[in-house]
């Protein structure tokens, strides 16, 4: 393809460079820009026509002038993938960051990634035991699912993500996950925390890290998750691995998306985020799953911080419409000293229904989980009432539910950072806690289950 260098830059604005009069340039084509001091930058074509081309520069446009030379490489962005990726640390654009050699490509994969044909997907149904009661019982994680953590600044979402990465396994199996970790704009301190923990547990050898830190170029963040997912797809579908992708922080990714949108003077959607953000996020999240005829799987665990703890903010809102549920971290529980501070009420796992029950977890799982939820929800609501009228005004049923909500938080939610409960332990714990409520108020449990597991003493 054309290796001609163009010096036809007309405008430079934010992360974008505008050129005129080029040979026909492909949409999405990769670009290198040579600066007057000889250094190089990379970019990608966002808009192309006979007269003008718009290029988005990953490293930022600093020091680019109108004399800079622009070369179009005739291809879209590809990542060199290989089995050797495992155990490596790369930067946000896919270059080695650990001082190791370049990745020798077994294959070059387009990072945009094609959509999986829904007809070719296999429904996820393998229960993943995370050892965290709140998740296993109430928002069950399934292999091939995309289940984000909705958190906020100052909350221990990283601890929870790491605990899950450490403990996640199929029930009655020791099969481990390959972890693909993707950092977007997090601080060096947070990154070190993840890295140290992965090193400590030996998981680093079975991980691939893509790292774009807070002081790395913001626009580069738009490709970092795509690189991570391309690597994940390769490992899962070409090498049969079960891959767990953790990416943090989606909020930084979306802010970069907004930055590009603003520089292009696009009509903004809500809060200045581009109108196509839903589609853009879907093209990341939808890369989770299992396909027919392949042994591997991709499970995604994105972390996002909700600006101002607001779950209706466009980032958690659009994410929630795409992902198969969410795990919501609560500031209130965190302040009450409860770890993991998971608020099960707004949390949800959409794939849970198909993966729990007699064959996979236990026959009482669904109904126990519903009953725990319902009782806790009502108990929490009563706390508000008690604050006004005092406990004396409550009837017997309400009093029991009120007490249950405290027990729920103290005994069920609370567990140690390295406490790994099996699903049987979790469900037995539920029955033992529910014995504090009169059987007649447990209307979501049927007689058969109560006789089988109930721990009520008459």
């Amino acid at each position, binding site marked *: 393809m054309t290796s001609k260098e163009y010096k036809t830059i007309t405008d430079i604005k934010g992360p974008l460079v505008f050129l005129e009069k080029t040979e*026909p340039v492909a949409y999405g084509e990769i670009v290198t820009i040579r600066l007057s001091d000889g250094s190089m930058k990379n970019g990608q074509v966002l808009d192309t026509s006979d007269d003008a081309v718009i290029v988005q520069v990953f490293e930022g446009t600093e020091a680019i002038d109108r004399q800079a030379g622009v070369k179009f490489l005739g291809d879209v962005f590809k990542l060199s993938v290989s089995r050797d990726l495992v155990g490596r640390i790369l930067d946000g654009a896919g270059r080695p960051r650990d001082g190791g050699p370049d990745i020798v490509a077994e294959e070059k994969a387009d990072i945009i990634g094609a*959509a999986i044909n*829904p007809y070719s997907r296999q*429904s996820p149904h393998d229960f993943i035991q995370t050892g965290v009661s709140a998740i296993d019982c109430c928002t069950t994680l399934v292999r091939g699912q995309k289940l984000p953590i909705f958190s906020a600044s100052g909350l221990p979402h990283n601890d929870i993500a790491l605990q899950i990465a450490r403990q996640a396994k199929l029930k009655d199996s020791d099969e481990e996950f390959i972890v693909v970790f993707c950092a977007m704009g997090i601080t060096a301190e947070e990154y070190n925390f993840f890295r140290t923990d992965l090193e400590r547990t030996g998981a680093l050898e079975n991980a691939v890290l893509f790292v774009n830190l807070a002081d790395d170029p913001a626009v580069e963040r738009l490709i970092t998750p795509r690189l991570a997912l391309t690597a994940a797809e390769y490992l899962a579908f070409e090498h049969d691995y079960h891959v767990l992708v953790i990416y943090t922080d989606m909020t930084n990714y979306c802010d970069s998306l907004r930055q590009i949108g603003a520089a292009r003077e696009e009509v903004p959607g809500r809060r200045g985020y581009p109108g196509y953000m839903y589609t853009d996020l879907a*093209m990341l999240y939808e890369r989770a*799953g299992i396909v027919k005829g392949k042994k591997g799987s991709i499970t995604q665990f994105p972390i996002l911080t909700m600006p101002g703890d607001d779950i209706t903010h466009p980032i958690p809102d659009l994410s929630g419409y795409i992902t198969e549920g969410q795990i919501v971290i609560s500031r209130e529980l965190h302040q009450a000293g409860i770890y993991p501070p998971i608020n099960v009420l707004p949390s949800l796992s959409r794939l849970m229904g198909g993966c729990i029950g007699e064959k996979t977890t236990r026959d009482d799982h669904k109904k126990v989980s519903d009953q725990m939820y319902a009782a806790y929800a009502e108990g929490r609501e009563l706390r508000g009432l008690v604050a006004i009228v005092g406990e004396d005004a409550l009837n017997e049923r309400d009093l029991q539910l009120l007490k249950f909500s405290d027990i729920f938080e103290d005994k069920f939610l609370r567990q140690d950072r390295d406490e790994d409960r099996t699903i049987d332990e979790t469900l037995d714990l539920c029955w033992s806690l529910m014995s504090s409520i009169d059987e007649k108020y447990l209307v979501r449990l049927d007689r058969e289950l109560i006789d089988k597991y109930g721990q009520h003493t008459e």
Partner: protein
Amino acid sequence: MSNNEGVIYRISGPVVTATGIDARMYEVVRVGHEKLMGEVIEIHGDQSVIQVYEDTSGIRPGEPVLSTGQTLSVQLGPGLLTSIYDGIQRPLQTLEEVMGVFITRGVDADGLDLEKKWDFVATASAGDEVVGGQIIGTVQETETITHKIMIPPKVSGKIKSIDSGEFNVTEAVCVLDDGTEIKMMQEWPVRHPRPYTQKYAPDTPLVTGMRILDFLFPLAKGGAAGIPGPFGSGKTVTQQSLAKYSDAQLVVYIGCGERGNEMTEVLDEFPELIDPNTGQPLMNRTVMIANTSNMPVAAREASVYTGITIAEYFRDQGYDVALMADSTSRWAEAMREISSRLEEMPGEEGYPAYLSSRLAEFYERAGRVETLNGDDGSVTVIGAVSPPGGDISEPVSQGTLRIVKVFWGLDAGLARKRHFPAINWLNSYSLYPQSLNQWFRDNIASDFPEVRTEISALLKVEAELQEIVQLVGSDALPIDQQLTLEVARMIREYFLQQNGFDPVDAYSGVEQQYAMAKAILTFQDEAKKAMAAGARLQDVVNVPSRTELMRARFAEGYLENIGGLVDDMVGEITGTVEAN
């Protein structure tokens, strides 16, 4: 002479501008060397703006653009049922055979299998005068559905010859006097409603088996309903339940910009599930369209039109068709995305100014009609709406609510309490009860509307009482109001809640719904009587048979047993008087 070949001038995401081509609006064109499918959506002088249904990465200015002279159409005929299509009617199964598990581009695929032979049985004979819409023969497409072969609209004449036998969909089964060949396949442009003789007022409910819907907020066959709700409130579960259990004869399910795994779940589940109305696998009456959120956005825009055109085609055969669109918000966002690439002046929240008229046009394609052949058919449309942050003051929800007559409002608060279906009984509404009351009186019970009114009134009173309880606690209420709270709780926990995953509770016939509502009212009456005779509220409420009555709905044969269970309850309540 018009020019049918041009070149690409500009590419910006899914929007491509071509020059040198004389295209008509909404004409289908082929873009680039790979011949990607696109549709002309704007013309400026020499430039035609095209929305492309596939990914445009790697396409360059200067590549060719070919016009086809066609507008975006679907192929209609035997083979539609049990199919699963993308937004532009390409069968996903064929795409998998051609491209593997990932959807790449540049593949053209027919919506119908053109080779497959169907057993055509002629019902018209040579010499008959026929007009558009008239049925000339049938094909037993699946065990449940007889596909009726119709003369395409706008065609008429006298039949010269017609033969029964094995044909594929492109062979002529019938020839008219003027030489017009009638094939089993016809094509129809998706953006045009198919014609009918007249629209009727709806008078029959679409029975869904969901108690809160059928009993409190019924939808008529041929009506339109909107289900707005924030994420996690159960829109998709509700839509899927409707697709499974509603008594429509055919279901068109559009997964528009939604999750891939959910579509797969439907695909796995429907062939296994049995239609309670016919005893046949659900898939036999279903056509599915899946354009997931990461598939091309322009094809998402087209998917709802593809779906409703297929629904209308079956309506024209005299069937009652239900169409579920999940979610219309994603469709609206696709319009917004394209509109923003066109640099159109935006309306509210960046949506194009024509959003509400497009929504109205779509929902208006619902209806119960007299078909061209004098038969009676209907299309019922149920659209899910995904309002950002759950706030229904946004343009898509508002545009929808102005048109539909049934509003099933999903509520995140209820979902959090695991009250499913999480439909809020206080703000939901249906404007159909008046026109459907006669049906309920004739088919279920003569006092059905009165029972419904009584149940809704109790729920309304409860909402008012709850406000007081929030301030003073329930013990401070007079005893009769405490009873009302208990009765209302029974309505909520026993009647309104329904477990969509429980094999028995998932579907509740209207007769059973009525029996359950009556059981609640019986409890109220008996409790009042007993308390007037001196029984204590605590004792009345805690009779074990009431809990059993409520729990037994998860067991088979509930409708038969409910009478006995109510009798037991009445007996025990009466017993509480003597115990005192």
